[in-house]
Structures are given as structure tokens and as C-alpha cells.
């Protein structure tokens, strides 16, 4: 414990002594984590928007005219009983007309003079969240089967498939870009810390010559790296909070209504802890890698 405290004091002393390089290192860690964190924040919110849109996935089953209501009720009960289905609601021809008229607004007079309602009755099926995918919908369609009551089925196949492709590209991009940014961060941090070590090369050499163990030499550097990494991570988190607030303010007035969300989410607690740990890891690894090069 005494040795650890002694290493901590030496690390703090070293940081004070070489505060310029320490500040540069901390700033670089902060920028790297800000880029990685910012990217995660962006992907997280895009995911949310897409999930929000997936929440609107419905299957509309248009029904043929001329069948008794009991047939419709039978079909509705069968579909409600499916494991993939959350709910099924019936929309009659007159309900459909009311909806259509409200959609037309001031242009509703174009319907004047029609003898009969031109819109079919329908069953509107909402899949359970985990089945709101192309695959899930196809599974439901398979179970609806060929029913003489069913005239047509619509579920926005094109846009659902497109969203899923976008989601795959974004998630793959997140992994690839995250890996590239992390590698770049480790490289930059290791080289910046190397400057600190280079500046103290004589000290390391003399310590070894007077009998210092590798642990004695490396521990303060490790602690310095951890402190710089943690400080950099805290700053990056602060910048992310500012960025989040700024972007949310900008988007609130324009885009939120269009994409159907009310606010931008910030990083989850787990991700924030991961960024703090990542900062400490980067600082620690960078320090150890740099000191290791001067190990004899």
C-alpha cells in the first residue's frame, strides 16, 4: 500500500513537472474519445429513429365484399391467436370512408355523388415488436394462407426492406469506424506518451542503474496514463453533453416532427462507463507500450 501511494505521489509529481505534455496527451485522448463517443451517440439515435419507424409496421388485410360478418370474426380470431401477432382490429367500409374523408380534408367533396362506398373493409394487424421485420411479416403472411375472404394484403414491403438494409449498413459502419477510430486513438496516444517517456529517458536509465525494479519504474507511468485517460474521458463526456444539447436544440424545431421523435437520447450509463474505462485503458496501454520500448 505504501509503495502504491509512493507511486501515486511520484506520478502526480511527474504530471505537475511535465504538465504541457500531460495536457496535450489528455487533450488527444479527449478528442479521440469524443469522436468515438459522438459516433456512438449518432448511431444510437439513428437506431432509435428507425426503431420508432418500425413501430409503425402494420399489415392491412383487405376483405372481399359479400361475405357474412361471422367469417370476418373467425378470421380475426384466428389471426389474433397467432404467436407473432400483437393485435388485430377490424375497420368497416364506413370507418374506412370516414378515415379517407378526414385525410382528404377540404377536398372531401370529390367523393360526393358516389352511390356506394368504394373502399373495402379491412383487418389491421399489428405484429409483436420482434416480428416487425421482413422475415417476421413473411412468417405471418404464411400463416394467413389462402383465404377466400382476403382480397389483398399490404404492409409496405419496399420501405421495410430498405430500412433493414440501412440498419445493417449503419451497424456495420459503426463497428468498422469504431475499430478504426480506436486504433487511431491508441496509436496517437502511444506516440504522445512516448514524448513524455523520451523526455524522461535519462531518469529511467538512472533509476535502472541504481537498482530500481521494472515495477517501480513502470507503476508511476501506468498511474499517469490512467489519470490522463480518465481525465480525457471525462472531458470528452462533457463535450458530448454540449454537442447533444446543441444538436437537439437545432433539430427540435425542424426535423423531430418529420421523423416522429420528441428528443435525442444521450449515451446509456453502460456506454458512459465504457467510455471512462476505455479512456483509462487507452492511457494505461499507451503508457505501458511507451515505457516498454525503453526497457532493457
Amino acid at each position, binding site marked *: 500500500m505504501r*509503495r502504491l501511494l509512493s507511486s501515486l505521489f511520484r506520478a502526480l509529481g511527474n504530471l505537475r513537472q511535465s504538465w504541457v505534455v500531460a495536457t496535450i496527451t489528455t487533450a488527444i485522448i479527449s478528442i479521440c474519445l469524443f469522436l468515438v463517443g459522438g459516433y456512438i451517440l449518432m448511431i444510437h439515435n439513428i437506431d432509435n429513429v428507425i426503431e420508432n419507424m418500425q413501430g409503425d409496421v402494420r399489415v392491412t388485410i383487405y376483405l372481399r365484399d359479400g361475405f357474412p360478418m361471422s367469417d370476418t370474426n373467425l378470421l380475426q380470431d384466428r389471426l389474433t391467436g397467432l404467436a407473432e401477432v400483437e393485435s388485430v382490429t377490424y375497420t368497416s367500409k364506413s370507418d374506412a370512408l370516414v378515415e379517407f374523408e378526414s385525410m382528404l380534408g377540404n377536398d372531401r367533396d370529390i367523393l360526393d355523388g358516389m352511390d356506394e362506398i368504394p373502399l373495402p373493409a379491412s383487418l389491421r394487424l399489428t405484429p409483436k415488436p420482434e416480428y416487425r421485420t421482413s422475415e417476421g411479416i413473411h412468417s405471418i403472411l404464411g400463416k394467413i394462407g389462402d383465404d377466400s375472404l382476403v382480397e389483398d394484403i399490404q404492409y409496405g414491403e419496399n420501405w421495410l426492406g430498405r430500412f433493414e438494409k440501412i440498419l445493417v449498413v449503419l451497424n456495420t459502419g459503426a463497428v468498422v469506424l469504431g475499430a478504426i477510430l480506436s486504433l487511431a486513438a491508441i496509436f496517437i496516444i502511444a506516440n504522445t506518451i512516448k514524448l513524455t517517456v523520451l523526455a524522461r529517458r535519462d531518469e529511467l536509465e538512472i533509476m535502472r542503474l541504481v537498482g*530500481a525494479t521494472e515495477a517501480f519504474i513502470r507503476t508511476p507511468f501506468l498511474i499517469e496514463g490512467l489519470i490522463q485517460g480518465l481525465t480525457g474521458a471525462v472531458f470528452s463526456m462533457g463535450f458530448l453533453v454540449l454537442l447533444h444539447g446543441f444538436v437537439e436544440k437545432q433539430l427540435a424545431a425542424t426535423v423531430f416532427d418529420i421523423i416522429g421523435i420528441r428528443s435525442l437520447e444521450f449515451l446509456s450509463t453502460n456506454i458512459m462507463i465504457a467510455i471512462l474505462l476505455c479512456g483509462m485503458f487507452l492511457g494505461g496501454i499507451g503508457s505501458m507500450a511507451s515505457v516498454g520500448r525503453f526497457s532493457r
Partner: protein
Amino acid sequence: MIQLFHVSKWYQKDVPALQDTNILIPKGEFVFITGASGAGKSTLLKLLFGDERPTSGQILVHGRNIARLPKSKIPTLRREIGVVFQDFKLLSSRNVFDNVALALEVLGMPRREIGRRVFSMLKRLGIHHKMRSNPLTLSGGEQQRVAIARALVNEPLIVLADEPTGSLDQEVSEHIMNIFSDVNARGTTVVIATHNLDMVKTMGRRVIHLEKGRIVQEGGL
């Protein structure tokens, strides 16, 4: 006790730094290693404190075979050996006190004990009044005394010095040699590499003379 058995050191294929060297230095002896530049004096000292490994042969220091000593054990060896370097190797980022304290810090000694020992050593060498100074502001003789203080402060069994009077005038050199004699009188083995034969003659101690990496003469001058 220091023993070298058929020790050779080659840095390059055609240039031997030390060849088939056999030396026995009993505990508490004072020995000069002499020879011209490139004779192998510094290499011999580096082999003794594990800064270099012999190409062949065995080196025993207090019964421990340095040639086979694992890297992890080198710090333990160095804590028993005080080394005074030709270029002093003092840190300009630390003051005199902290430079000397470094040798005790690596032992994990409590701060208070370090303070007591360092002050005592600096006082013994007559430079305690400069303990807050930066080493670079001191004269050559004063810097050498700081380097000696660092080598002696943890009371090593052996002291090695590489050209300790190389850049000093006659008067200061004599003072430095008196310090080494005093250390030796307290039971510490002292090995000094030098090319200053006049000083060696004055001291009247055992001399090992090297030429091109070989011992060519041994005894007094």
C-alpha cells in the same frame, strides 16, 4: 568478493573489448583498473554491475554468478553495488538532495529515513549546504561528490567508479580519492577505473593494467 573466470566480451566480431580475463578481488580491497582509452576498463565495470553480459566466461560477485543472473535479479545486484559514472549521470530535473535520494527511493525506504540518510551522506562529503541546488549549477568536483553520495548512500558492499577524477584538477582529485579511501576503510570494496597513473602511484594500491582487453600487468605501481 569479486571473481572473473576467463571472461571475454566482444561488441563486434573483430574487436574484443575484453579477452580471457581472470581476476580475484577479495572483500574490502581497493583496486585500480588502469589502461588507455579503449583498453576495456569501462567494459569491465559494466560487466560487474550487470550493465553488460559477458560473451563467455563467468563472473561471481559475492557468490552470485552475474553471467547467468536472470534479468529480474539485476536490480537486487545493483542495490549492493554503488556506481560512480564518468559523466556523473545526475538528473537536472531534480535537486542535489533528490538525486541522492533516488538510490533510496528505489528501495522503498520511508521518506523520513531517506531524509536522514541523504543529509548525513551529503554532510559527510561536505556538500550539504548545496542540497537544494540544481546539479548543473555545481562545479565538476561538487557534481562528482553528489554522484559519489548517491553511490554510497545505501551503504553498498562494493563501489565501482569510472574515471572519477577524469575532469577534475589535482586538488579536487585528491579530495575525491580520500573519500574513496575513507569508504574502503569502513570495509567497502572499491574498484576504480582510471588512466591517471600519477594518482594511482600516489595511492599505492593494487593495480590491474589492461591493454586491448587483456590484463598485461598486475600488482602495485
